[in-house]
């Protein structure tokens, strides 16, 4: 009993448990369909590229994983979520594609400017959006979700203005590489891995991770302790914007176009869900980046499984919404207090019984 409790107390318990649950569903479904039980784990090379369901999940989940990095830091530092990430993705994709297509928009096959310019523009656009959110939250003390609400609608609308209400196609191999393959490995996986590695390195090598947590736990106390709380929160939002920029670049490269109406649609829910699934409290403070990343891939696994089971993509949000509410409800203080009370009651009953027995 105590061992089980120890296991469930582990911070990574929730994401790994969910991941295993999804795997079980997949295996059961495969067996019931008459396929091998290891069908899910098969990795093979097709058309000189790695293939298989695991690879597929890792590939498709990259955007959410990249977003989850930024979201984790934002949640930790400011106890609020950045709901503009999906729209910012669309905006940076729009800016990038419009620049690359140049005068040939909306149908371009040649790059109008060097690729690096377009990529940098997407990333800078993400940073600007992040800085806007960060300035509102950190320096003007506006609730994070309300501040990011502005860009939630505005960013997508501005993206549509940039693209002139059209889907801008950039059918060029050098641009398609971000959503394609380097050798046999899908590039999004590599990009996500680099992002995770870079952020982890910065957090581990410097005291930044600790600073962010301390600001999240108590902003005033951290300021008195000599930390520049405002600057740290601001930086977290800029980083979150940058992550959204990268994710937007990957998403648009995947379809070699900027479909501003649809890129990043509903991704904010996925990113927040990833953070919650990763065992991080949405009330700020301590965070676990690894948990969020596992959470992100778990969500993609859920999505892929849904498609596998024949659930339409439009219905998907229903399940995700229910999962979010359940996870957050379990973490809610009154529910926790209730369970504590129940277990204390049980303990007391046991003791009473023991006393009577004696």
């Amino acid at each position, binding site marked *: 009993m105590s061992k089980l409790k120890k296991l469930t107390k582990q911070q990574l318990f929730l994401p790994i448990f969910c991941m295993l649950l999804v795997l079980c569903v997949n295996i059961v479904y495969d067996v019931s369909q008459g396929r091998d039980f290891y069908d899910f784990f098969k990795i093979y090379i097709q058309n000189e590229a790695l293939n298989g369901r695991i690879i597929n999940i890792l590939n498709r989940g990259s955007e959410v994983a990249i977003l989850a990095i930024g979201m984790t830091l934002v949640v930790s530092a400011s106890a609020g979520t950045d709901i503009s990430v999906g729209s910012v993705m669309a905006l940076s994709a729009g800016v990038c594609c419009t620049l690359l297509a140049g005068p040939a928009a909306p149908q371009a096959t040649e790059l109008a400017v060097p690729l690096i310019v377009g990529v940098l523009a997407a990333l800078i656009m993400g940073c600007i959006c992040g800085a806007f959110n960060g300035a509102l939250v950190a320096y003007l003390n506006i609730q994070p979700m*309300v501040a990011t*609400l502005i860009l939630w*609608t505005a960013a997508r609308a501005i993206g549509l*203005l940039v693209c002139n209400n059209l889907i801008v196609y950039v059918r060029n191999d050098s641009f398609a590489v971000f959503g394609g393959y380097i050798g046999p490995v899908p590039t999004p996986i590599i990009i996500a891995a680099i992002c995770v590695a870079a952020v982890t390195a910065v957090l581990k090598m410097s005291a930044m991770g600790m600073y962010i947590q301390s600001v999240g736990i108590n902003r005033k106390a951290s300021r008195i302790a000599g930390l520049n709380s405002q600057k740290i929160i601001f930086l977290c939002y800029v980083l979150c914007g940058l992550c959204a920029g990268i994710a937007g670049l990957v998403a648009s490269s995947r379809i070699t176009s900027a479909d501003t109406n649809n890129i990043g649609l509903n991704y904010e829910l996925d990113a927040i869900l990833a953070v919650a699934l990763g065992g991080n409290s949405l009330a700020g403070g301590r965070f676990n980046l690894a948990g969020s990343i596992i959470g992100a891939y778990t969500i993609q696994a859920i999505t892929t499984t849904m498609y596998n089971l024949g659930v339409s993509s439009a219905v998907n949000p229903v399940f995700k*919404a229910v999962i979010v509410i359940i996870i957050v409800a379990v973490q809610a203080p009154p529910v926790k207090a209730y369970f504590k009370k129940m277990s204390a009651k049980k303990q007391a009953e046991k003791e009473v019984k023991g006393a009577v027995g004696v």
Partner: protein
Amino acid sequence: MKAANALKDRKKMNSNTTLLLITIVLFVLLYAAGCVAYANKGFTTVQTFLNIFRSNAGLICVACGMTCVMLTGGIDISVGSLIAMDCMIIAFGLNNWGWASAPTIILLVLAIGIVFGLVQGFCVGYLEIQPFIVTMAGMFFARGMTAVISTDQLSITAEADQIFYDMANFRIYLPFGGTVNRAGKVIMPYVGIGVVIALVVLVVIFLMLRYTKFGRSLYAVGGSEQSAAMMGLDVKKTKMKAYILSSFLCSIGGICYCMNTMSASVNQATGLEMDAIASSVIGGTLLTGGVGNVIGTLFGVLINGTISSIVQFNGKLASSWPNVLTAALLCFFIILQSIFAKIKDKNK
């Protein structure tokens, strides 16, 4: 005498009144600008002004509910999706369900609104989950459920249900402000049933916030939860009621909205929550709770409507401009609010 003067001064200094004044001035300026720019296209007619009400009747109801929720310091972003779901239920039900008729389907939609609000309110009030997370989940849930019902573009025709069709097309003519058309016939300006419903909702909520116990407790909870609890108010219950009220008004708004569009699709009313929040904030409701008024909200909605009708009259501007402008206005007012809050802190 001195005390009275101090009270007068305080009333003068009140930043909330200033915000409301800014809003009204902004609306007048915007409308005047529209009148000057598009006078030859008929912007100055009474009908144009009434059309702002006609196309925003749903939004007025939703924004009233949103104001009530925001008074408690919460937020409800599920409203746009809930309206989409309401429209889909009405359209799909009238077309496909044999038992459905206008009264039953309206009752069903209102009941769904109450249940939806009950669940959200329970999560926010009793489980103490952040309102944003709860209502965001609600938003995706409702949007998903809309897709579960149908992913087609449905429209409500006279064959589907005669009563609903007649209700939607019923015109109430005003006795003044008519225009003469080309044939020389005088056409009186008119409004639909939706506008009447919206105005009734507005008046009821205004009176409720001002004179009922529930209305005052909304302000108390938003001002300070702790003090409200110490005064003996049931904070959790008040919060839950606020969300129920919001979803219920949203359902009424959904019916008005449906009467206006007479169609339903999965992507209907996306971003309407943003318009509702923007209207409340522009109308002087503080995001931190405790301050606000539905009269301000009405002007917020009117500003929203004026922007979109100016874009419509122009005809050349892209359809995403209203979104950008509303977001810019929202940003402006949020920053204004935070500056006022800072000044208030300093004066303390």
